[in-house]
């Protein structure tokens, strides 16, 4: 299984060379077994030189290509990575991801790159600049007019990523940036960086990207942000607290460096007042909530954290969910039939347990035991799904404020569409919410109320039961991001992700 390779010493790809840190660095452990996977360290790396290399080498090479050239480059790279996907799955198990979790990360990430390749070919011209909108005539005789154009910035796109999607997280950001003509420096979260490093090695092996188009930092970014300019772009995925710190970094503020952030999100799923027990929407809702809680062991920025149910149906939903979750005991990610793997690390589990204790101030656990450890799996970061319930949701501040990044969600009863919308808004801005209803009026009222607080709203009902891509899936063509607490940034969204 995962007892294959000897521990690796991760390296950074800087200025075209694989570069180890000066120290041996921090040990990274297999999420399921606790076995040592790798050491990570980036000390001694000259971050200013890395930025400079990207700007001087990667940028000009990419800008010399047309949009179609760069789209063809992404297609070639996507296909080359897809051919090596099994290597990535093997490594992915060590992050705690099951095969199904890995599919979202690996094939979902490569698929996003391929989607950008084909959209770039179809929707962008074979040129090096884009026109934006129509000509604005500024004179009656058509002798003076104006046209908006878009050109690639001449800096580097710095992507600071989260631990939960070591493959998708890289590819969904570099694909639009490379298509736009910007070189990238990727800094994955340490915990699962060994998988990202493998993908970047595979990318580098292909020789498809021009020199300087992609660099990788395995370890701390050090003083990298001190060197950013107004032509660079910094994106961050992770906690709201870290994001705020980065956003107010001196160089970013002084140079008005573009900063895009995707942070904590207390996504809601709402059962419509019309969707009582016995309706297809009720069943779809229960299935979706359970799936979102257990997929990636709940470690998705889009996972459902707040489960809003008409007060009259809350006991029925609780019973149905508890039954489903009971079948999702965690197990070894690579084992056949495992529906849920461990959290990414023991530290992560401690963190989630602490957040659950915070939630318990205003809610009580109705299913699952956060401290239970499956027998024989004591070395891993396993945790059973935990369902809480807060019966006074308007005053349950912690539920709307505290993100337990694991298989954890809280049931909230509501009374009327207006209150459901008000509760959702108490999350202060989210990536996505879903509404399960077959009532057109409910759909209209809910979406009108939810939309200002969300980057995406999914409506589920019997018609789309088979075809729906689900609550949690960000799609290349749709906005990924949300206002307020969710970070205020926008990723993906088709060609908008290229243009901004």
């Amino acid at each position, binding site marked *: 299984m995962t007892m294959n390779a000897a521990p690796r010493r991760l390296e950074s790809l800087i200025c075209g060379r694989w570069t180890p840190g000066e120290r041996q660095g921090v040990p990274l452990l297999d999420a399921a077994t606790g076995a040592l996977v790798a050491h990570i360290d980036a000390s001694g790396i000259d971050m200013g030189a890395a930025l400079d290399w990207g700007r001087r080498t990667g940028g000009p090479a990419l800008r010399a290509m047309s949009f179609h050239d760069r789209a063809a480059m992404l297609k070639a790279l996507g296909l080359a990575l897809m051919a090596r996907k099994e290597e990535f799955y093997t490594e992915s198990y060590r992050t705690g991801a099951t095969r199904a979790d890995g599919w979202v990360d690996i094939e979902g990430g490569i698929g996003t790159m391929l989607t950008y390749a084909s959209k770039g070919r179809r929707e962008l*011209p074979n040129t090096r*600049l*884009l*026109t934006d909108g129509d*000509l604005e005539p500024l004179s009656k005789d058509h002798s003076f007019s*104006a*046209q*908006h*154009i*878009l050109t690639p910035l001449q800096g580097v796109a710095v992507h600071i990523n989260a631990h939960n999607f070591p493959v998708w997280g890289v590819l969904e950001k570099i694909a639009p940036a490379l298509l736009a003509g910007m070189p990238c420096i990727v800094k994955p979260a340490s915990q699962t960086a060994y998988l990202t490093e493998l993908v970047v090695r595979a990318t580098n092996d292909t020789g498809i990207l021009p020199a300087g188009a992609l660099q990788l930092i395995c370890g701390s970014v050090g003083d990298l942000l001190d060197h950013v300019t107004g032509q660079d772009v910094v994106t961050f995925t992770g906690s709201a607290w870290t994001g705020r710190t980065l956003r107010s970094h001196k160089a970013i503020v002084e140079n008005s460096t573009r900063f895009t952030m995707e942070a904590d999100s207390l996504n809601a799923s709402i059962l419509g007042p019309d969707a009582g027990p016995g309706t297809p929407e009720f069943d779809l809702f229960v299935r979706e909530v359970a799936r979102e809680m257990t997929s990636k062991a709940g470690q998705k920025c889009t996972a459902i954290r707040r489960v809003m149910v008409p007060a009259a149906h809350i006991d029925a939903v609780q019973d149905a969910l508890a039954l489903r979750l009971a079948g999702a005991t965690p197990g070894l990610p690579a084992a056949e039939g495992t529906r849920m793997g461990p959290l990414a690390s023991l530290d992560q589990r401690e963190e989630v347990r602490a957040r659950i204790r915070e939630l318990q101030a205003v809610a009580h656990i109705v299913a699952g035991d956060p401290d239970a450890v499956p027998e024989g799996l004591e070395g891993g970061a396993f945790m059973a799904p935990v369902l809480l319930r807060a019966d006074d949701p308007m005053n349950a501040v912690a539920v709307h404020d505290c993100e337990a990044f694991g298989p954890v969600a809280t049931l909230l009863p509501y009374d009327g569409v207006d209150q459901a919308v008000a509760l959702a808004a108490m999350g202060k801005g989210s990536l996505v919410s879903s509404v399960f209803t077959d009532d057109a009026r409910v759909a209209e009222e809910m979406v009108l109320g939810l939309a200002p607080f969300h980057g995406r709203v999914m409506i589920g009902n019997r018609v789309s039961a088979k075809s729906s891509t689900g609550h949690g899936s960000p799609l290349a063509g749709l906005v990924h991001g949300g206002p307020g607490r969710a970070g205020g940034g926008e990723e993906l969204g088709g060609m908008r992700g290229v243009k901004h």
Partner: protein
Amino acid sequence: MQRTAVQGAPGLLSAVTGRWSEGAPAQTGTHPFRKSLAELRIGDQLVTAARPVTQEDVEHFAHFTGDTFYAHMDSDAARANPFFDDRVAHGYLIASFAAGLFVDPAPGPVLANYGVDHMRFLAPVYFGDTLQVRLTCKEINPRANADHGEVRWDCQVTKQDGTVAAQYDVLTMVAKTWGQAAQAAE
């Protein structure tokens, strides 16, 4: 990417963007549908002959297509409509006549018409009005891995008094090369 508003004379804007726009220089000569991407340039323009629109034309089109909407068929009803002074030609008839005016029928580098963008009918066309088309090569987008590319044409249909009756972009696929050699190879 950086969004920048660029202001200037349309001819210079076209040089920057690679897209012809109203007011930029245009050149006439060989029918632009006889040119492959190797010869075609932004601003290549065709100004067609004029053709009148008659009551018979409109009635023929109405019965042939089944579109017998009252504004084309019934004078009193058309006059009661806030936009029309009398019976008018179908918008699609205008577009069809326009195509009839601007195409060059023999086999050539223009391979297919794959759509129109931004079609607007801007002024009513009454029986007895005369239509003329100005077709200008607006944008050329060669495909990297094919023997053809997309060409966008600015299509302006005017009436005898210069009023613009219809304005839209015609979208075509055009061969990268066309000539004796290309024909012989087929």
